[in-house]
């Protein structure tokens, strides 16, 4: 008993150290003369990490695969854009973005969470497309031609970068807390077997609505942070189906249902996405599709699962060679 708790402590320390190092590296990198282009790429990656971690709360921990997260991303983007244009402090605008997305998650969740598995996924596509069509035709937000943000003062890339880093940090803390809390336990139970979970006291609908709310709020904030940076948003971008797919791809590539996976996935996607689009303007989505199939077939826990196997392999080889040198 004692031995396990000591091992557990050691294990947690190692994790906290890894996260701390990542945060420090990302914190000092822009000061090391990495240039505006890399800073921009890292900013993009951080925004994607927020959405990826958010999606994983619902899709990874709770097992509800949603294709509708562009709704929250777009809603957050438009809310922040209008707030900033209305003279609001950006941070206050982001808070309202999160709030707006969280509120929207309730009428979306109430009907769709009564559906299971692929039916839920299909329903979220429907909701997402409906919202995109409405936004394309809504005149006071500029309709299909988009919406421009007019912020006074100089453009400070580092301010944007640290805002994104801060929110990404918050997202990871929420994700870790959710994973190891009592609430997280009920989410896992719902993912494994919803009815069996209800048969020992979990209210599945409430659990799903609550985690959906959290995920929507974080995604809305990410949309807001992106909108302020881009200074121009349009429905075919933020509300597009490919935005929903991107938000779902990252955590699956990295490792759905883990804390680190969505961060790794978001990071990789953020960095390679632009190059991929430039190199294969027509085919980049096909590449992701192929990657997705390979991951689901061979390593459902994504990069995290693959790293775990690699670690086991290295440890085994190490032990073997140690034994050989002794013998």
């Amino acid at each position, binding site marked *: 008993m004692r031995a396990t708790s000591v091992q557990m402590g050691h294990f947690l320390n190692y994790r906290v150290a890894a996260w701390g190092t990542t945060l420090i590296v990302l914190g000092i990198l822009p000061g090391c003369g990495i240039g505006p282009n890399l800073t921009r790429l890292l900013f993009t990656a951080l925004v994607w990490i927020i959405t990826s971690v958010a999606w994983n709360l619902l899709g990874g921990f709770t097992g509800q695969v949603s294709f509708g997260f562009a709704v929250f991303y777009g809603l957050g983007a438009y809310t922040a854009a209008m707030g900033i244009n209305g003279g609001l402090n950006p941070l206050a605008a982001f808070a309202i973005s999160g709030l707006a997305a969280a509120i929207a998650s309730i009428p979306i969740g109430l009907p769709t969470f009564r559906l299971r598995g692929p039916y839920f996924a299909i329903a979220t596509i429907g909701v997402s497309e409906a919202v995109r069509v409405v936004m394309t035709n809504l005149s006071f937000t500029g309709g299909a031609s988009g919406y421009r943000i007019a912020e006074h003062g100089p453009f400070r890339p580092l301010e944007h970068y640290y805002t994104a880093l801060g929110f990404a940090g918050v997202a990871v803390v929420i994700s870790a807390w959710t994973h190891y809390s009592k609430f997280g336990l009920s989410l*896992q139970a719902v993912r494994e077997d919803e*009815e069996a979970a209800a048969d020992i006291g979990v209210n599945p609908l409430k659990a799903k609505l609550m985690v959906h709310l959290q995920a929507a709020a974080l995604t809305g904030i990410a949309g807001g942070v992106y909108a302020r940076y881009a200074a121009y948003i349009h429905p075919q971008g933020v509300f597009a189906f490919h935005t929903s797919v991107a938000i779902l791809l990252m955590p699956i590539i990295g490792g759905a249902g883990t804390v680190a996976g969505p961060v790794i996935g978001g990071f990789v996607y953020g960095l390679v996405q632009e190059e991929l689009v430039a190199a294969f303007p027509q085919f980049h989505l096909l590449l992701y599709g192929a990657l997705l199939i390979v991951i689901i077939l061979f390593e459902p826990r994504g990069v995290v699962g693959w790293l775990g196997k690699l670690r086991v392999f290295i440890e085994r080889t190490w032990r073997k060679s140690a034994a050989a040198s002794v013998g």
Partner: protein
Amino acid sequence: MPPLLSVERLNRYFAGLAALKDVGFEVEEGQICGLIGPNGAGKTTLFSIIAGSIPPSSGTITYSGKDVTHWKSFQAVRAGVARTHQITRPFRSMTTRQNVEVGLHFGRGPVSSSPSNEVTAILEGVGLGHVAGRNAASLCVGDQRRLELARTLAAKPKLLLCDEVCSGLTETEMNEVLELLRRIRERGTTILYVEHNMRAIMSTCDQVVVLNFGQKLTEGPPLKIQNDPAVIEAYLGRTAAN
């Protein structure tokens, strides 16, 4: 004293097919009440309605003096009625310990000041102490049955609904489980017990309700049921009864 559970004129139709017709019975507090009947008699349907998994077409269920006919399963659990499943449904990618933790934290409660010790005690009580850290998917059939029971016990039911906890178990394992049920009853939990195995029913129950084709055939103490010609006929056919 009023019965802990009372079922009155319960009907349930599946697309016109009557699975239960006017079923009524009562379970006294502190009893182990057996529910038996041939395949397709409606035992599991009755069970699922009492546990709140599916609603009845008509009729009423009263528990502890409250009308609970249309409650949902999580509400039933929090009020003190919890079921096990005939086909075990462990949370496969979670550990044995985590499975039990869900029941403990979301059940009727209250949770003691040391939940971790409580989970250990529950696991050891059903003989799962040695596999606490293993993934539920890796457990053998017998251990999965024990886990099903442990998880439900962690929710601290006042009325435990056991659905064939002995199926697929060896003779020794079965005796262990039956002994466990008696111990649970001694601690003050009432048990409604669906079982196919007659020996299991006869050796543990105070009262037995017999269902056949969705209707209550008879009820009474085990010895009386065992010698009832109508029961023998339902199970074995007319010639055997004569």
